C-alpha cells in the first residue's frame, strides 16, 4: 500500500517537474510547479513529517507560486519564448543532468545508506518537539532567520523603487 502510494506520488512529482522544464508557457510551468509541490507534500506525509507538509503547501504553493504567477502576468510573457532544443548548449545540459543523476544514484547505491525500516518514533509529527528544538538547540538560527527576513523585506522595497523617484538610488 505504502509502496503504491510512493510510486504514484513520485511519478506525479517527476512528471510535473518535467512539465516545469518543458512547458512552452510560463503559466503552465507555474501550474506544474504547484502540482509538483503537492506531490512533495504527499511524500512528506508519507515520511510522517505532517507539519512540514502543511508548511510546504502554505508557503510554497500558497505564497511562492502565487508570487510567480503574479510576476508572470505582470511581465506579460504569454506565449513568449518556446522551449527549443538548441545545439551544443542543450546537449551539454542533458549530459550534465544525466551525469548528475548517475553520480548521485551511484552514491546512494554504493554508499550503503541502509535500507532498513524507519528508526524510532514519529519525530516529525509532533509540533511540541519542533518547538522544543527551535527554542533550545536552534535558538540562534531562528533569530538569524528573523533578521534575514527583515533584510529581505527591506531589500525588496529598495530594489522595487523606480529609479529617479525621491530617495531612490540613481
Amino acid at each position, binding site marked *: 500500500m505504502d509502496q503504491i502510494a510512493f510510486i504514484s506520488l513520485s511519478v506525479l512529482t*517527476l512528471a510535473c517537474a518535467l512539465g516545469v522544464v518543458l512547458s512552452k508557457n510560463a503559466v503552465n510551468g507555474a501550474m506544474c510547479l504547484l502540482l509538483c509541490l503537492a506531490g512533495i507534500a504527499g511524500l*512528506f506525509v508519507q515520511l510522517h*513529517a505532517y507539519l512540514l507538509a502543511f*508548511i510546504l503547501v502554505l508557503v510554497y504553493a500558497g505564497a511562492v507560486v502565487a508570487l510567480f504567477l503574479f510576476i508572470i502576468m505582470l511581465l506579460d510573457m504569454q506565449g513568449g*519564448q518556446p522551449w527549443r532544443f538548441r545545439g551544443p548548449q542543450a546537449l551539454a545540459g542533458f549530459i550534465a543532468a544525466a551525469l548528475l543523476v548517475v553520480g548521485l544514484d551511484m552514491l546512494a547505491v554504493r554508499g550503503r545508506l541502509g*535500507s532498513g525500516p524507519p528508526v524510532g518514533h514519529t519525530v516529525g509529527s509532533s509540533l511540541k518537539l519542533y518547538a522544543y528544538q527551535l527554542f533550545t538547540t536552534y535558538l540562534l538560527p531562528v533569530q538569524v532567520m528573523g533578521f534575514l527576513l527583515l533584510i529581505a523585506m527591506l531589500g525588496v522595497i529598495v530594489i522595487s523603487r523606480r529609479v529617479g523617484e525621491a530617495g531612490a538610488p540613481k
Partner: protein
Amino acid sequence: MTPSLDAYVMLSAALFAVGFLGVLVRRNTLVVYMCLELMLVAATLALVAFSRFNGTEDGDVFVFFILTVAAAEVAVGLAIIVALFRARQTVQVDRLNSLRH
C-alpha cells in the same frame, strides 16, 4: 512494505537533476528561477527522508530554515527580475549579456 531510504534519495536526486536540466536549457529567467526552486525542494525531500530513517529531528528543523530562506530568496529574486525587466524590457537570459566578455 514501506519504501526504502534508497528510493527516497534516488527520487530526490532525479528531481534535482530535472531542476538542474531546466536551469541549463531554459532561456526564460522566470522559468530558470522556478527550476531553482525545484532543486531546493529536492534537497528538502532528501533531508526529511534522512531524518525519518535515522530517527532524528535535526533534518526536519533544517527544512524549516530552508523554507524560510527560500521564501526570502523568492521575494528578492523576483524583485530583481522585475527591476531587470524595467531596465531592459526583456527577461530572456541570452539577451541579458552586459557582462559578456
